[in-house]
């Protein structure tokens, strides 16, 4: 489970970096450094989301793939069985899905 939470923490941090850069670029559309940072983090996020989906469950609808999504007992109530994976994993608003808050030291809100 440590792996799952560590990966989720990385996805949260990379995604937040993109959230912050997106708003900044909305009002600074010619900032090349910010654009380069956006592309770099966007590639990283795609890679992390795919890894998470392969090992655990899909976090986005684009990652839903019943053939390749993780299907161990910790991910689903249908382990090893082909099934619709979108409902796998913890509920996002429950404590179980947010254990990374404890290990994260948690990302700051930006500036």
């Amino acid at each position, binding site marked *: 489970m440590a792996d799952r939470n560590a990966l989720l923490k990385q*996805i949260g941090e990379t995604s937040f970096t993109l959230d912050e850069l997106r708003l900044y670029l909305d009002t600074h559309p010619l900032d090349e450094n910010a654009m380069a940072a956006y592309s770099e983090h966007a590639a990283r996020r795609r890679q992390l989301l795919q890894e998470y989906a392969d090992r655990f469950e899909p976090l986005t*609808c684009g990652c839903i793939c019943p053939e390749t999504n993780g299907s161990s007992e910790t991910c689903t109530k249908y382990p090893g069985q082909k099934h619709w994976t979108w409902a796998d994993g913890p509920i996002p608003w429950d404590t179980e899905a947010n254990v990374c808050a404890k290990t994260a030291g948690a990302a*700051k809100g930006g500036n």
Partner: protein
Amino acid sequence: MWTYEKRLQFPVHITRTCPRTASLIISQFGGPDGEMAASMRYLSQRYSMPCKEVGGLLTDIGTEELAHLEMVCAIIYQLTKNLTPEQAKTAGFDAYYIDHTAALWPTAAAGVPFNACEFQSKGDAVTDLTEDLAAEQKARTTYDNLLRVIDDPDVTAPLRFLRQREVVHFQRFGEALEKIKDNLDAKNFYYYNPEFDKQFVKA
């Protein structure tokens, strides 16, 4: 078009049940300066916004506010999910419990139900963006008020994150207002309504 991502923007992990705290934080769900009002305000204003970059910013901030709405609801949910009948009698939460049990329902901390008047969509780019600047500061003040009376570090961590986002959004809206003014007559920004008298707005 929107799609859902199965995670919170910032993790919420609260283990101590506290209906009293939930009854205060609920203002940032359904109160006048809460996240629902913020999201719907920006997403309503964007359609008639004359500058498409500013319409884009309103979309992106309005979308982030939906993620904040979800975080605030997660905080309230986790503070009340293991409620005992005795805890349901907590002053400040008891009346809410009678009407909604432990479900989420948008209301201000003082008991006023959510009201669409909070959207503040006026149809004038200068007016609306000035409103948005004030809205971000009002939300920041509300988070400051909450942080002054709440001690649980599991609750204050996500509240601090949300407070900081208000400051960032204020900054971006300030830049958006300048962008709008760049397209207006510098001698008198208020001579025309840029959303209505479009023929006078520079291309």
